[in-house]
């Protein structure tokens, strides 16, 4: 496999893990717009231990996950008291504070960042992404997953059914934070360098959009969302230069101005977001869609068993 494709696979795998980290709170009804903050914590935890103490990758990744999960757990108690707009702002502010603290920390390299000596090839993120996917599918099939989706739909009724709202929300938020941390750790070892500018607000926005556009009702959503939006720009790579030139001339811009490569990708992500919110706000993959592809269960089965 060429370096180009292995690079893309690694990014895809990291994005899938990251998306699942945001999916867990969002599927519970908690919009988390602080993804970049949690990813940064994981990335820096792994980078620091690898750079300073030369820890093996397996250990740094576990540490990244545990530290971020722990911070997610600690933060969850105060932050999940907030709801709606306040929660969005709170998680967003958390990410900015994390970025600000790292920027001012000499130990973590400040604005310059940290080199990461241990490189991992694409196999590691891919295997871990597969494991995380299995884990989330498993989780969504348990009663915990059922309760998560119930809390998303109606908190008051869930509470009256005996669901511990705080327990479910905190657990989903903390486990999600742990997955974001793992994605961060993998980022550090894949790119062998961490700098805080890479964990900006745009990253938080993107990953939330992956999840919401993929669909939050089933575990398929983040997988499809992350895959679609990671691979789409690669597919469009050929078409873009022409599009770019035509729009530039439309606005009367001089031909010599080079737009950054990512811009078109974001314009498309933005358009897809707006259109999806109009036509299919529940995301690409919905519960009803998944049911349609499942083998039909014979309707008389339950009755037959009950009478048996």
């Amino acid at each position, binding site marked *: 496999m060429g370096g180009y494709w292995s690079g893309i696979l690694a990014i895809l795998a990291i994005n899938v893990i990251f998306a699942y980290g945001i999916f867990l709170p969002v599927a519970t009804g908690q919009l988390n717009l602080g993804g970049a903050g949690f990813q940064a914590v994981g990335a820096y935890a792994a980078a620091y231990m690898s750079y300073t103490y030369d820890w093996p990758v397996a250990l740094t990744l576990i540490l990244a996950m545990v530290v971020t999960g722990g911070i997610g757990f600690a933060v969850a108690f105060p932050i999940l008291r907030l709801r709606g707009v306040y929660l969005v702002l709170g998680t967003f502010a958390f990410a900015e504070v994390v970025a600000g603290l790292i920027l001012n920390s000499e130990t973590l390299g400040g604005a310059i960042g940290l080199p990461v000596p241990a490189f991992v090839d694409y196999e590691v993120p891919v295997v871990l992404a597969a494991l995380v996917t299995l884990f989330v599918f498993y989780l969504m099939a348990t009663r915990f997953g059922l309760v998560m989706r119930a809390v998303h739909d109606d908190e008051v009724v869930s509470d009256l059914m005996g669901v511990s*709202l705080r327990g479910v929300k905190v657990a989903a938020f903390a486990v999600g934070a742990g997955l974001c941390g793992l994605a961060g750790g993998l980022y550090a070892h894949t790119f062998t360098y961490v700098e805080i500018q890479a964990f900006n607000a745009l990253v938080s926005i993107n990953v939330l959009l992956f999840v919401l556009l993929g669909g939050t009702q089933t575990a398929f959503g983040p997988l499809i969302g992350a895959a679609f939006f990671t691979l789409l720009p690669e597919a469009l790579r050929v078409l873009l230069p022409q599009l770019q030139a035509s729009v530039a001339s439309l606005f009367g811009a001089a031909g010599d101005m080079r737009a950054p490569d990512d811009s078109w990708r974001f314009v498309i992500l933005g358009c897809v977001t707006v259109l999806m919110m109009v036509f299919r706000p529940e995301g690409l993959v919905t519960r009803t869609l998944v049911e349609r592809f499942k083998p039909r269960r014979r309707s008389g089965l339950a009755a037959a068993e*009950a009478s048996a």
Partner: protein
Amino acid sequence: MMPPLLALQGVSKSFGGLEVITDVAFNVEAGGRTALIGPNGAGKTTLFNLISGVYRQDKGSIALSGEDISDIASRRRIGLGMARSFQNIRLMPHLSVTENIMLGQQARAGSLADMLTPLSLFGRTKWRREAEELLGRMGLDTYPGEVVATLPYGIRKKIEVVRALAASPKLLLLDEPAAGLNPTETAALSDFLAEIAETGVTLLVVEHDMGFVRSLCDHAVVLNFGRKIYDGPTGSVQEDPDVLEAYLGRRNRNEDAAASAREGIHAA
């Protein structure tokens, strides 16, 4: 002597200075089928919300099987043996029928092991089997895997009752179970609830349809402007002067409500 299953004493509740429930006291005896009736805005749903713990009463006490539950969190009350339905259907729209029923079991399945056992991944667990059996018993096994949002109104109304039943409650609080149903559906629901009552579940039902109330309930409590004005057998509700006053005397203030109330009472 056995204490009553549910006992309210001097319960009052205000919202923003406006008292909506005033000094309400009544008992629901175990095994009974009690109706809670009254004109629109009489405070019936508020009383349900106080009993189930959505709100806390300002004064008075609410006891279940002789034990004061005023300080028990709303989510723990279902575990003590009371479950409820809602005036507007509040099933989880994105969950399947079976999953909604399994949510009803939550109060009995909250342990960590139960939470982390898959409900369907490797064959069907006992919780799923139990839910499917319950649906089968209630004649709702046609749609176990359907997502609830896609089902017709009458079916969803029934599923909500079954979800409350899944908690194995001693006391079932039903908020207008017949609202929005046609006469045939209403009659079927009445039979359905009578069957449930046969199994030893105590019913407390908020309902406007007096025909439904008389066919199902043996006891009635009538509220008006947040006060109890009647507490006795269903049979003599419509002879009670206070009740007639409450429904008919409001004619000038609220033509529609009075008209529908009259219809309700005389249809009975």
